[in-house]
């Protein structure tokens, strides 16, 4: 299904020979193929449209480098623009000088929040921090057990309690962390829909009362056109500091990443590339750009030309 973009492009350009310079007319078919590739990679339609307009603007008038074909040149332009759109992101987390630094993870159901809490805790512990996990999902059956199990595997303390609400659990968790000498608190919240007013309100209350220093939106890389709708709503409610994109170990092409970055302006910080707790990496825009286009080594080729 995911044909290599370059293959398609060479088909599109094969129909007429492009010589010398790219013009609006001779790149028309090529851009159509680019559009399809982006849509099949789940890039949001509005983002696709803006993007195509931009690429067209840049491409028209560009001299064709002698040693490469026009389809290769277009791919290079598209690739560079994609990377630029996603931006180089800084995956470091700023820590507070005094008192524990609080991170809060939020997102839709099943996106990978709890697992990512574990991954972050592990990563930070390896950097010499002393994290504590807080189990604030009191909704999903055995969510607390899940986080406790991860804590056990990592030998990282988990704050969990019953009989109080999630806001209180977070507040108590921060206090418990300070008391235990932990310098980092990671809040695992329940999955929720961005249109669930009651639960969105609950998140806002946690933010108000606990004042997390970093709020991360955890997003499933396999999400389709709707990805931006939820990201936008979470960003409006909470002013997100970063996005963590999960499940990139499969063949999802990551169009959601591009769309979210473009629509919200929130940087993508990390990516999840497996279920295991060591499978978290800093976000790599080049990798995503490559997989969105479903292409191989063309960029290197063009850069060398």
């Amino acid at each position, binding site marked *: 299904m995911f044909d290599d973009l370059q293959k398609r492009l060479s088909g599109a350009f094969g129909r007429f020979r492009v010589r010398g310079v790219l013009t609006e007319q001779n790149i028309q078919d090529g851009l159509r193929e680019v559009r399809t590739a982006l849509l099949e990679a789940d890039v949001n339609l509005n983002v696709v449209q803006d993007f195509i307009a931009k690429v067209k603007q840049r491409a028209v008038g560009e001299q064709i480098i002698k040693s490469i074909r026009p389809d290769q040149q277009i791919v290079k332009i598209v690739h560079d623009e994609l990377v630029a759109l996603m931006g180089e992101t800084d995956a470091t987390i700023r820590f507070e000088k005094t008192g524990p630094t609080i991170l809060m993870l939020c997102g839709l159901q099943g996106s990978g929040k709890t697992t990512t809490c574990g991954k972050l805790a592990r990563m930070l512990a390896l950097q010499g921090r002393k994290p504590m996990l807080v189990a604030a999902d009191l909704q*999903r059956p*055995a969510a607390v*057990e899940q986080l406790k199990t991860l804590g056990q595997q990592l030998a990282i303390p988990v704050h969990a309690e019953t009989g109080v609400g999630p806001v209180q659990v977070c507040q108590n968790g921060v206090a418990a962390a300070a008391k235990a000498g932990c310098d980092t608190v990671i809040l695992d919240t329940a999955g929720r829909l961005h249109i669930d007013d009651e639960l969105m309100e609950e998140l806002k209350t946690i933010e108000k009362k606990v004042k997390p220093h970093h709020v991360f939106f955890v997003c499933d890389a396999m999400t389709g056109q709707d990805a931006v709708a939820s990201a936008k709503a979470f960003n409006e409610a909470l002013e997100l500091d970063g996005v963590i994109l999960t499940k990139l170990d499969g063949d999802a092409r990551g169009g959601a990443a591009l769309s979210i970055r473009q629509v919200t302006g929130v940087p993508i910080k990390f990516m999840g590339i497996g*279920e295991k707790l060591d499978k978290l990496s800093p976000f790599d825009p080049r990798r995503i750009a490559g997989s969105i286009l479903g292409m191989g080594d063309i960029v290197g080729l063009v850069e060398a030309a």
Partner: protein
Amino acid sequence: MASWIERLKAGLAKTAKLLDVRSWLGRTVDQSFLERLEAQLLQADVGVKATERLLQKVKEGFEGKTADEDLLAFVKAELINLLTPAGGAPEAIRYAPTPPTTLLIAGVNGSGKTTSVAKLTHRIRSEGKSLVLAACDTFRAAAADQLAVWAQRTGADLVRGQTGADPASVAHDACDRALARKADVLMVDTAGRLHTQTHLMRELEKIRNVLQRKIPNAPHEVFLVLDGTAGQNAIRQAEMFSKSIGCTGIILTKLDGTAKGGVAVAIRQTLDLPVRFIGVGEGIDDLQPFRAEEFVASLFGERLAASPN
């Protein structure tokens, strides 16, 4: 609590706005009309191929004409057609002549398998049937605990193994239990896995083989649980899971959000795999049989006929 139709409609309300078909009426079916229709279908995750096919048909039949009720009916019928499998979709679970009817549930990580197992259990239990659940996710932290909570709430019998145990051996034990207890139904929850992970797909085949060996003609139903917010990647999921374990239907979850689940149309373009149930919430009652007519009607923001469910 709102009825499921209300909830589904609430969830699909954005879709209704998206496919704002009433506003089509009276406009000329020209290039800009077709472009708008195209945008609407793409944004519902219907995918480039299925969208192009539909557009082509609309163009052939209506170009230059004024959009009227006929056009609406045509687009609707095409979508329904795209969502209905060759032989017509069976509505409910197909029970085997000799129990236990065996259901295998699979899908990628976090799509809603365990919750769907719980919802199906509730449905089957309310038909007065007895049920054994197999917790074959021995990998994810507290996965069996999660299913145990649901088993208790729904009054099902649960077979589980140690963390890290071979899931096929749990399936094996569950078959024995279901046979010994003369249970009406055996339902197997499996760990989430990406369709690209060959070793995990093989593990799934092994579970299937155990069921096949222990119970005649099992598994009788193999449901692929797809996240309704998923995009075009779901097509690959459907292809790969079907190839590996022979799916008999899809459960499309999380339709209570703003996602349209249009990828079901795209999947139907490539595979003859019907959507059997839809998930419209996290609660035990939030599962309903899929009916193409109702689904498309709600995509169009139309009133749904009263449903027996």
